[in-house]
């Protein structure tokens, strides 16, 4: 591996170039370039590093927060476990109350409907009774009318008929003379 170096040995018999000034100027140029790089790019690199550090820190903080929250939820779940039976009891009690209320409501509604049906039935009976009485009355009056007509017709002889006509004419004459 050292062969190329020895091969590059200069005319002065050493490892350095033959002209020592090249070493000086080269070194000077190297340091100048390094200085410029440090001067110009250094802050940006530092800033980038600081940003990366901040981001990592933030992510770390968030992870810590998530962990804390998870632990809190776990603790709450563990603490809440004994309340399940209480909740269950409460739900059962509410269900029992609801059932009781429904039973009472249903019974009340059934009673109300029965009352309404009874009222309707009573009204129907009354109406039918009224209708039957009206029909009976109509039938009786119709029979009475027929019987009366037959009886009167049998009673009316020629003199009676003539008397009725005369009476009618007289009433017209009286009305006419009063109207004058």
């Amino acid at each position, binding site marked *: 591996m050292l062969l190329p170096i020895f091969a590059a040995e200069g005319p002065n018999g050493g490892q350095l170039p033959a002209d020592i000034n090249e070493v000086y100027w080269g070194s000077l140029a190297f340091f100048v370039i390094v200085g410029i790089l440090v001067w110009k790019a250094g802050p940006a690199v530092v800033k980038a590093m600081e940003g990366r550090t901040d981001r990592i820190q933030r992510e770390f903080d968030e992870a810590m927060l998530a962990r804390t929250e998870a632990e809190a939820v776990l603790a709450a779940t563990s603490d809440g476990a004994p309340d399940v039976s209480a909740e269950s009891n409460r739900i059962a009690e509410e269900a029992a109350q609801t059932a009781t209320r429904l039973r009472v409501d249903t019974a009340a509604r059934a009673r109300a409907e029965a009352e309404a049906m009874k009222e309707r039935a009573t009204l129907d009976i009354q109406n039918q009774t009224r209708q039957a009485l009206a029909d009976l009355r109509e039938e009786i009056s119709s029979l009475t*009318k027929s019987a009366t007509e037959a009886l009167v017709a049998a009673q009316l002889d020629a003199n009676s008929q*003539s008397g009725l006509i005369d009476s009618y004419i007289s009433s017209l004459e009286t009305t006419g003379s009063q109207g004058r």
Partner: protein
Amino acid sequence: MSISTSYAEAIHAVASAEGDVARTRNELLAFAQALQQNDQLRSTLANALLPADTRNQIVDDLLSGKASDVTRAIIGLVVNAGRGRDLDEIINEFAVRAATSSGKRLAFVRTAVPLTPEQEKRLAAALAQQAGGPVELQTEIDPSVVGGVVTTLGDNVIDGTIRSRINKMREAL
């Protein structure tokens, strides 16, 4: 103007042209009374399913030798026109019109027994007093009135029948 009024006017015009309104009126009224007492005759003459010739033949058979040619022609015309159902209404309209044209009013009088001439005279006079002018009576025997008289003078009905009194009694019951 109703159909009946139109027919009545036409019949009056024909009877006037023939110069015997009174006879035509009496014959037509007699035929109307026969119609009222015979539902089968009325429904036969009103039956549009029967051929017009058949209905005309019935009218001719009924009135042959009993009514004038004018009366027979008038009834035949109304029946052929499919107005057999309205015949009595048309005849009554014509009778009222005929009486009016002679300066009188026509009163339709229904009784259970015939009126005596004296009663007719008194009744006509009493109705004339009511109407304020001469009244001609068109009498009809109707046993359903039982007794008494019912008179129709224009729109005015004067009911003095036993039947109406029995009806009132029935309503009171």
